[in-house]
Each structure stands twice: as structure tokens, then as C-alpha cells.
């Protein structure tokens, strides 16, 4: 369908990097989200404030700008701080790691809200019953709340994944050779910008379509044994 003049393999390579960045960022976002949700729901004032600041700031600033701040700002900040203390440090971020860290950090804020909502959706009696059975708060969390929380979190996490995988395109700006960057490089060689970017768009669309099917399947699996009205 697409004549990419032998540059198709570049797009496939880019696609695999896009998927890799996406998966790793999602994992990081889920870890950040669980920590954030714990902070938002905890009675500890400091944890509460930190988590609220985290979600408020991240959701109020564009991803692209956050990416630039983290990719260019963090090394400079560390270097300047080190310089003031009398050290000479040269720091360069690997774009792959920086991309994962940034995307994970940003979408961790969205995952925080998802997990918070999921924990609140569990009937209160469940946790109380566990406590009454003599489980400690930690044990009740691990055995009772955590397994039930996933079912409520899955639709939200699916949405986070679909937004996240599209946001990986931004990482091309800091030079990571994922799908967008590879298409851009190939454009310099074969002068078929529309064909190339349309092929890239179809690949993203395929990821979205597969994710939608996967989400439906996983949700059905997670809701097995739940009676529906």
C-alpha cells in the first residue's frame, strides 16, 4: 500500500522503540500513581500536600514543556548545585531514559487520580472487616484492598495508556529515535513526507485499535464473577 522506497524498516525500528518507551513509562507511571494515591489518601499532612502539589502542577503544564524542563533543566540544576559545592560534574541524559522518566513522571500524576478513585470505589466495609479480623493496616491493604482496586482502576489505566502512547511522539523532540523521529529522518532521504507520516499515523492507529480490544478483554477478565445489573 505504501511505497516507502526501502525505508519501511526504519519505521518498524521506530515503532519498537515507541512501544518500549511506552511500556516502561506506563510501569513507572503506575508505581508513581500508587505512591501518589497513597499520599493523597494518607492522613499524613506532608504526604498529602506533596501528592496534591504533584498532581496540580503536572496537570497544569503542557507535557512538551515538562519534557524540556526535565531533559534540559535537571542536568543543569545538578551541575550548578555541584559547582556551588565545589565539584565539577558533566551530566548528559540519555534520551531513552529521560523520555521514560519524564513520561512516567507526568502520567504518574494522571494514574494517581485513577488509583485514588479506585481505592475510594471499594466499599468501606471491606477494609473495616479486614481490620476487625485482626489484620494490620498494611496487611489489609495488601490482601483486601489492593486486589479489589484493580477492577476499578482498569478503565482509567487504559485511558492513561492510550494518551501516554500518543505522548511518546513528543520524545522525538529531545532526539530519541522513535517512530516520529525515524519518519522525520526518512523524510530527508526520500522526499515523501505525506506517505511517511501517514504510514506512521497508521502505526499509531493500530496501537490504539489493539489497545482498545485489549482493554475490553482485560476488563472482562477482571470483572469475571461480578454480577451485573
Amino acid at each position: 500500500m505504501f511505497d516507502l522506497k526501502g525505508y519501511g524498516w526504519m519505521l518498524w525500528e521506530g515503532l519498537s522503540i515507541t512501544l518500549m518507551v511506552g511500556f516502561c513509562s506506563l510501569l513507572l507511571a503506575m508505581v508513581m500513581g500508587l505512591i501518589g494515591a497513597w499520599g493523597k489518601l494518607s492522613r499524613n499532612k506532608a504526604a498529602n500536600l506533596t501528592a496534591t502539589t504533584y498532581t496540580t502542577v503536572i496537570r497544569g503544564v503542557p507535557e512538551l514543556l515538562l519534557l524540556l524542563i526535565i531533559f534540559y533543566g535537571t542536568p543543569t540544576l545538578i551541575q550548578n548545585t555541584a559547582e556551588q559545592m565545589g565539584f565539577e560534574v558533566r551530566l548528559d541524559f540519555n534520551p531513552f531514559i529521560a523520555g521514560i522518566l519524564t513520561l512516567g513522571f507526568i502520567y504518574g500524576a494522571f494514574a494517581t487520580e485513577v488509583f485514588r478513585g479506585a481505592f475510594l470505589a471499594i466499599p468501606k466495609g471491606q477494609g473495616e472487616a479486614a481490620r476487625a479480623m485482626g489484620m494490620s493496616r498494611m496487611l489489609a491493604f495488601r490482601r483486601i484492598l489492593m486486589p479489589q482496586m484493580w477492577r476499578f482502576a482498569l478503565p482509567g489505566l487504559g485511558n492513561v495508556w492510550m494518551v501516554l502512547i500518543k505522548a511518546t511522539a513528543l520524545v522525538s523532540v529531545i532526539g530519541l529515535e522513535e517512530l516520529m523521529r525515524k519518519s522525520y529522518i526518512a523524510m530527508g532521504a526520500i522526499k515523501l513526507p505525506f506517505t511517511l507520516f501517514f504510514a506512521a499515523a497508521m502505526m499509531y492507529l493500530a496501537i490504539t485499535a489493539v489497545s482498545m480490544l485489549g482493554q475490553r478483554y482485560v476488563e472482562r477478565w477482571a470483572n469475571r464473577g461480578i454480577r451485573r445489573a
Partner: protein
Amino acid sequence: MDWQIIVDSIPALLEGMGLTVQLTLISLVAGFFLAIPLGVMRLSSNPIFSAPVLGYVFFFRGTPLLVQIFLIYYGSGQFRPFLQEVGLWEFFREAYFCALLTLILNTAAYTTEIFRGGIQAVPHGEVEAARACGMSGFTLYRRIILPKALRLALPAYSNEVVFLFQSTSLVSIITLMDLTGVARVIVARTFDVYEIYITAGLMYLVVTYGILWVFRTVEFKLSGHLRDRAVDPAEALKLHP
């Protein structure tokens, strides 16, 4: 922290914010008026109307905005002879036009889906009542369905406005001088990375929460008839001694 550079760059950053706001407003208005007929078409039982809208919405919601921008900005070059012939090349040569066109098409797709949800959420009884009064077709939509649907869609729509406002930052990648673009140029010149970027980030933050505040106020005003009337206990006692 170098405070002087922050103070010096604020006028330029504000100018960038001007372009950001301009792009957001134009795309919002155009996207809104495109999305209403598209949302109605999307729900049509005739696939000739609903299928193209379905494909359009799926494409623009399923691909990254950056791909869409590149597709129009760089991709139009592939059709240059044709575009020159029909006299449209003048437009597609301009990054501003391409950015605006992409943002409009993108937000219209998301808004279509939001309006579809709103239209579907209109209680069926209201539609039946309107039909019983003899309304149908255009009148029914104009008087009953759309006003209710838009009100129901407002919370989701406010999110879309915020997302659109933030995604305009991508136009800096195709050389436009919006807030992010200006910040990037200043950083490239001065190397004061975090001072400038954090100042720009704070500007985005303020406007984002400003937008959310406006929508919350509007929602509150529009839902007056649904709230319990606030009753001052002392007043109530006076009325019913």
C-alpha cells in the same frame, strides 16, 4: 537562580502567551461549530452520515497531535504542484495556517465525541414530550436536544478546552513563536534553562486553572435550578413560628 533574566524575559513570554491564547480561541470556536453537526451525524442511523464521522474521529483521536501537525505541515509539500494549481499553496506554506488547521481538526474530533455523549445523555422523556408537542427534526434539536446536551457535556468539554490549550505548545516544533516557542528561543540564547522554562510553566499553570475556574463558575450558574434552595435556619423559623 537568576531573577534578572526572568524579569527581562517576561514581556517576550507574555507575547508568546498571546499567540498561544489566540490559537486556542480560534480553534475552540471553529472546533465547536464543526463538532455540533458532526456529533448529530455521528448518531445518525444512516451509515452514509455516521461512518465518515466515525472514521474521522477515530483517526484524530487515535494518532498523536504531532503526527497530524507534520502530516499537514510537511505532508502538504508532497502535493505542492496540485496545491499551487488550485491556489491553496499560499496557505499550506505558512506554519501558522497548518498549525491552526490541525488544531481545529483535532479539537473538533474530540469535541464531536463529547457532544455525542451529551446528546445520548438527554433523557428520552424530554424528546418524547417535544415530539408530542409536534416538534421534529431541526426544531427538536435546536429547542430541546442541543441545549440540554451542551449543558450535560460541559464538564467533559472544560477538560477538552484545557487539553487544547496545553497542546498548542506543540506548534513551537514547527517554528511558531507561542509561549513554549519563545521560551525555547530564550533558553537557546541564554542557557538559563530552568529559570525560563519554569516561568513559562507557571504561566501555563495560571491560565489552566483560570480556565477551570471559569468553567466551574459557569457550571454553577447553569445548574441553579437543580440545587436545593439555600435556607437560612433563622429565616425559616421566622416564616413558620
